[in-house]
């Protein structure tokens, strides 16, 4: 499929940003200490478009870590559907693809959907780092989760519109009138370890007692860093908090992690995944088996955050490699 792009000069990006920020709360990559984060920005001068992976993925805005979903009192439960209009300005393809994969799970979730329907996503090309493995996870090509994608080309960007919202933007005057045709938009690079997703998917339940689980679980601290920074770990817990009067308060949806000891515990105390090995393996069986069974793609986009932020230096690629080989 040929994609038609329109050129925007670097100096015109500010005009694009200003236009977007008039209508949306803009979330963009900014520098924070030595790291980069996705944060609300008001001025284009704060935005860093040439950035490595951010600490937290976009899910922190789509599925906030502690989100009120109902207000309750004696009369019952009142929906707290968000109405904020968020624009991501400059998401890498891994993160944009992650949103596309979250859509598959949460399209009928009223809170996620309300944000998503009002959302604008502008993607931007990236420079893969040594922890990236989006190619193996089939998340290195352009997705229509992006309304608009900006491909860096010399001192310009080529803008590809994937949706009606995107088409409106590229019709603005700060995009050059002529079009550029390309066959596809894909991030190509040499991965440190190239993984065979199909083999992993097949082997993960077949080879359930592979020694890799023992080996890796011994190193794992169950700190949940990997699931927190993962753009596709979406497990949640639901908790009620009351105000001064009992029976009045808020019901929250909070991030949870299947690495936590309490995750598969039932009333009465039985725990179906008491061993860390079982919990650790569960992260993988969900990402590379359950999710593929359900949706045809893994719930991993190879962003590498789990590798960067693991205090025990566990590299998910190596685990998958031992499991499935090349």
């Amino acid at each position, binding site marked *: 499929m040929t994609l038609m792009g329109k050129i925007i000069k670097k100096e015109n990006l500010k005009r694009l940003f200003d236009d977007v920020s008039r209508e949306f709360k803009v979330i963009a990559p900014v520098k924070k200490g030595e790291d980069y984060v996705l944060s609300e920005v008001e001025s284009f001068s704060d935005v860093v478009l040439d950035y490595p992976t951010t600490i937290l993925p976009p899910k922190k805005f789509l599925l906030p870590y502690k989100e009120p*979903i*109902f207000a*309750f*009192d004696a009369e*019952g*439960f009142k*929906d707290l*559907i968000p109405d904020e209009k968020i624009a991501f300005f400059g998401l890498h393809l891994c993160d944009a693809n992650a949103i596309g994969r979250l859509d598959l*799970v*949460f399209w*009928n*979730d*009223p809170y996620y*959907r*309300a944000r998503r329907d009002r959302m604008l996503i502008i993607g931007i090309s990236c420079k893969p780092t040594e922890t990236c493995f989006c190619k193996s996870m089939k998340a290195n090509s352009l997705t229509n989760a992006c309304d608009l994608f900006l491909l860096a080309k010399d001192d310009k960007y080529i803008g590809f519109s994937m949706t009606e919202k995107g088409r409106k933007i590229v019709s603005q005057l700060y995009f050059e009138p002529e079009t550029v045709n390309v066959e596809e938009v894909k991030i190509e690079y040499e991965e440190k370890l190239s993984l065979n997703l199909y083999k992993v998917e097949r082997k993960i*339940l077949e080879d*359930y007692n592979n020694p890799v689980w023992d080996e890796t679980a011994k190193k794992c601290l169950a700190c949940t860093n990997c699931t927190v920074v993962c753009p596709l770990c*979406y*497990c*949640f*817990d*639901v*908790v*009620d*908090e*009351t105000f001064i009067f*009992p*029976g*009045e*308060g808020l*019901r929250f949806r909070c991030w*949870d992690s*299947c690495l936590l000891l309490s*995750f*598969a*515990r*039932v*009333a*009465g105390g*039985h725990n*179906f*995944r008491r061993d860390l090995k*079982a919990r650790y393996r*569960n992260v993988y*069986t*969900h990402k590379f*088996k*359950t999710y593929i*069974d359900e949706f045809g793609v893994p719930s991993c986009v190879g962003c590498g955050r789990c590798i960067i932020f693991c205090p025990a230096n566990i590299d998910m690629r190596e685990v998958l490699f031992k499991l499935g080989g090349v």
Partner: protein
Amino acid sequence: MENIYKPFKSKILKVVDQTYDTKVFRLEVKNFKYMPGQFVELSIPGVGEAPISITSSPHEEGYIDLCVRRVGNVTNALHRMKAGDHVWIRGPYGVGFPFETIKGKDIVYVAGGIGMAPLRSSLNYVLHNKKDFGKITLLYGARTPADLLYKDEFDRWANECNFLVTVDSEKLPDGRSSGWKGNIGVVTTLFAKLNYSIKDSIGIVCGPPAMYKFVIQEFRKAGMPDSSIYLSLERHMKCGVGKCQHCQINNRYVCIDGPVFNYADIKNLPESI
């Protein structure tokens, strides 16, 4: 857009004490269609939400019964409530017992402890439609005589099906003797007391996690194929709609694919029982 997490208000019509830690709550519902084996998410505002199986039979209309043991925050709070109070529920969720596929067959129910709650829904529904079924057997085990649920239905069950009951210990939870004269031993000891073949029967099991593999062994010994065995599995389904992941068993969700599973489908599924 419909809010899939939003519970509706339901009045508690009646509360019946079953044991020292278990009560049955009758909740008012309207146009509420469900099958035995399905569950609801029950909310007490400020305390939280918990998945509870339905213990009444679909032929009873206008209400559902929930048989609840006091074990966590929500169930403890529920135990403090009385007729006339309100709770909030949503559901029903999950796949129940396969009523149509087991029609015409003999059925052997094996219940352990609070596992009696969902099985009772299926049992009473089957007994209500008894002409559609063959011989019905109920094997029921509890820890002590004080833990036996639905004692007021024992006579009816004994009349309408082959009902055998056992307790792990005749001693009451406080250590006193109960004077129990019936069977003593785990529920699987009741299989030896069946003087007829259950090879062609359907087996339906619900109980504590440790019970399943021993009951399955008994069914297999009797010559029952795995595909004739149905298990109702327990997990903490937090959302009920296949999202929160708490009830995930590898590539199955208890809230969507279960809680009732055909054993042949999950026997190779690690962590299932």
